[in-house]
């Protein structure tokens, strides 16, 4: 029998191809030119604009929107890329509702911000569709920089260094470059192989070599990289995932959400990707929402996000929460997992209700069992494989200034480094700023 959302257990092909295509199409379809002009016209060109302040990469948003409004989206794209070379991906994945669009004066006034993210996508798409790279390399400096991690931080750092005339080699552990852009973003936010296309476009600057399948600590060492290069930038992200610490954590059906999201992004045919009938996702952040929504879109019958605190404490933005509920995901709050039940394969997750007692989370003793064939853990990621020489603080590489680590000649940025939100756009800003600092140090 053809599987359906009702099919018991974990099954692939619960929905037909047309249904899957529809479910995994662009969450925010690109603007047509006229739509872009109308949207751009809503921008007030604020003085010292709050949106610019809110952008971790400080893109001159009023200027690029005005450039769209006046019919020069390519100029707009250059304004964006000058600050954020991954402006194309950020236009798709930035939680704009908690950044630029949250502080847009029209959001404050009318509850309807200028759609900055979509306008940014319009501009960047236009330039990338022309296959134009807006920057050229400076004369070669003869300096060589090694970067670990071809994610947003590493790529941004590499591009800025290459622009300055340095030669860059990026080592990445995975098969493909892109980091979380390639492996960690919900499919409906980055469709059509955009992450790889963006990397290819970025590399057009020249002077950057990427070595994939090259793992720090296995294929290369920090000492070795330091010895062979004038500087090293670490942007390897957080490779570890937190475990529940419960018995049965390794039961069939109990998985980490990050792997699920990566598998989904890498799947050639979504109809071959198995998903449970009843899915439970534990966590309250973007990863939890991405895993839950995509489970539902793959055809799971019931999907529940279980979060230990109140809904107002969820790290996922209100927009993300509403996206989840609109797709049919149930959000259950004030529950913490206490047991996984099943006989070899998962059948239910047991939660204890919680309450906030003077800011401290406490179990009430009352429990509930939620049927589950599949349970995804989305309770945070951890730094793995950081070289021992580096000082670690709060579970991350300690940095000062523009990403300087405790080891001279070694910089770090992105999720693996201390400080800033774990967002693509923050990683880009940190990579870019570290590159400027490396450049200054190398040319001193």
């Amino acid at each position, binding site marked *: 029998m053809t599987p359906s959302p009702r099919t018991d257990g974990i099954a692939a092909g619960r929905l037909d191809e047309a249904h899957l295509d529809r479910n995994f199409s662009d969450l925010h379809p690109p603007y047509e030119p006229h739509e872009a002009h109308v949207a751009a*016209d809503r921008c*007030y060109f*604020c*003085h*010292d604009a*709050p949106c610019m302040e809110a952008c971790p990469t400080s893109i001159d948003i009023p200027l690029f929107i005005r450039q769209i409004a006046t019919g020069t989206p390519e100029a707009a794209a250059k304004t964006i890329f000058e600050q954020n070379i991954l402006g194309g991906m950020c236009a798709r994945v930035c939680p704009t509702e908690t950044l630029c669009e949250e502080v847009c*004066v029209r959001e404050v006034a009318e509850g309807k911000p200028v759609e900055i993210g979509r306008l940014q996508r319009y501009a960047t798409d236009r330039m990338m569709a022309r296959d134009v790279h807006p920057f050229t390399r400076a004369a070669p400096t003869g300096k060589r920089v090694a970067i670990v991690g071809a994610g947003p931080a590493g790529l941004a750092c590499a591009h800025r260094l290459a622009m300055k005339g340095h030669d860059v080699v990026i080592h990445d552990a995975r098969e493909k470059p892109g980091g979380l852009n390639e492996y960690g973003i919900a499919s409906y936010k980055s469709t059509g192989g955009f992450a790889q296309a963006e990397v290819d476009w970025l590399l057009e600057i020249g002077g950057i070599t990427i070595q994939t399948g090259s793992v720090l600590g296995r294929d290369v060492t920090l000492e070795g990289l330091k010895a062979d290069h004038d500087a090293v930038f670490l942007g390897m992200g957080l490779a570890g995932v937190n475990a529940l610490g419960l018995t049965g954590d390794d039961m069939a059906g109990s998985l980490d959400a990050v792997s699920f999201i990566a598998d989904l992004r890498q799947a050639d045919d979504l109809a071959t990707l198995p998903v449970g009938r009843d899915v439970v996702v534990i966590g309250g952040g973007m990863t939890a929402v991405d895993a839950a929504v995509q489970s539902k879109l793959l055809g799971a019958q019931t999907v529940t996000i279980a979060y230990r605190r109140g809904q107002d404490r969820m790290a996922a933005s209100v927009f993300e929460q509403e996206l989840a509920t609109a797709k049919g995901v149930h959000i259950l709050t004030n529950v913490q997992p206490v047991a996984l039940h099943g006989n070899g394969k998962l059948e239910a997750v047991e939660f204890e209700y919680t309450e906030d007692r003077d800011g401290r989370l406490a179990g009430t003793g009352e429990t509930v069992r939620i049927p589950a064939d599949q349970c995804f853990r989305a309770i945070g990621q951890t730094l793995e494989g950081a070289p021992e020489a580096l000082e670690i603080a709060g579970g991350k590489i300690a940095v000062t200034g523009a990403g300087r680590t405790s080891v001279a000649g070694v910089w770090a940025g992105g999720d693996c480094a201390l400080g800033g939100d774990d967002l693509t756009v923050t990683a880009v800003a940190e990579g870019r700023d570290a590159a400027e600092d490396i450049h200054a140090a190398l040319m001193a």
Partner: protein
Amino acid sequence: MADLTTDFLGIKSPNPFWLASAPPTDKEYNVRRAFDAGWGGVVWKTLGAEGPPVVNVNGPRYGAIWGADRRLLGLNNIELITDRPLEVNLEEMTRVKKDYPDRALIASIMVPCDEASWKAILPRVAETGCDGIELNFGCPHGMSERGMGAAVGQVPEYIQMVTEWCKMYYDRPVIVKLTPNITDIRKPAEAARAGGADAVSLINTINSITHVDLDLMAPEPTIDGKGSHGGYCGPAVKPIALSMVSEIARNPATHGLPISGIGGITTWRDAAEFMVMGCGNVQVCTAAMTYGFKVVQEMISGLSQWMDEKGYTSTDQFIGKAVPNVTDWQYLNLNYVTKAKIDQDACISCGRCYAACEDTSHQAIAMKEGRVFEVIDEECVACNLCVNVCPVEDCITMVEMDKGAVDPRTGVEVGDYANWTQHPNNPMAVKAAE
């Protein structure tokens, strides 16, 4: 509901909204649709002399400028007068007038500037039964190159001469339509009155080029790589038209001369503004060309509602009511002092007022912690730019200072009315009797 009936030169129409002589009034089919939609009157598209009709270009006739969401703000045209035979137009006019006796029907005319031409056409127009004629001394393109339209309207002596011929050979009302492409609109109006015109109508379109095609290096609309100036109309020209209307309304030599107001009238409010500025009725074109004839329904309902709210029961109660308040700059009260005030609850902190004032005006707005914008009364000259650039209506207002209060900018007490003619800095000041 207020009575919108207007009596303009003895011509009655159920409302003051007429369609101007233009493409929408070129033939029976359109005019019937217009009357069915509710228009009070129609000025038929300009008739030319008997004989082979004019020909139009076969490329684009219009150009436009747009605001957000392609809202049409200004339209430019290079279409000429009617390109249909005179007999056809006259027959159609006769039929239409017979079927719509309660609506105003006016014939717009443009023939060569010689007495014989006017003498020949006027009796034929009279036979249609139309209520009056409008002399097209306004079209700025094409026909003006042939000594007609604006070429006549730019020479007051010609206006007077032709008007006199019309009054001699035609016994119904004669309206003279004026061109704005002239330095002082009062002169052609005075000439029309001297010639015996019953009314003037204005404005006709303004010489314009809306765009230049930067690839072709040619003006738009482009005809085979070349362009010619057209006539500009639509919402963008309203302020120019209102000013010209006001000049004629308050000029002692033309005061009281009936005016039919034309120029960018798009809503009931625009119409009301022209009427209080002295117009007995209004003529509309671009709004109908943009939205279709149905727009008149909004104009009718809007004007009625406003009249009801203000207690006006007929249009003559407000026509011309704003004219006494149009004056020369020199008579404006220099002791009227206002200060901008920002409503902090309405402010959305965009900072446009600050950028405008700081960069281009008087540095009279302070940007404080937390994006709070406040007016510095010591610097504010009440220029109103902040009000104009603020995206929130009524967020910034101009608050009048009480008499006797001290203006913190000048240190001077707000006094009684005094104008430039009395000001000590004016070398020509009228000295008060010692």
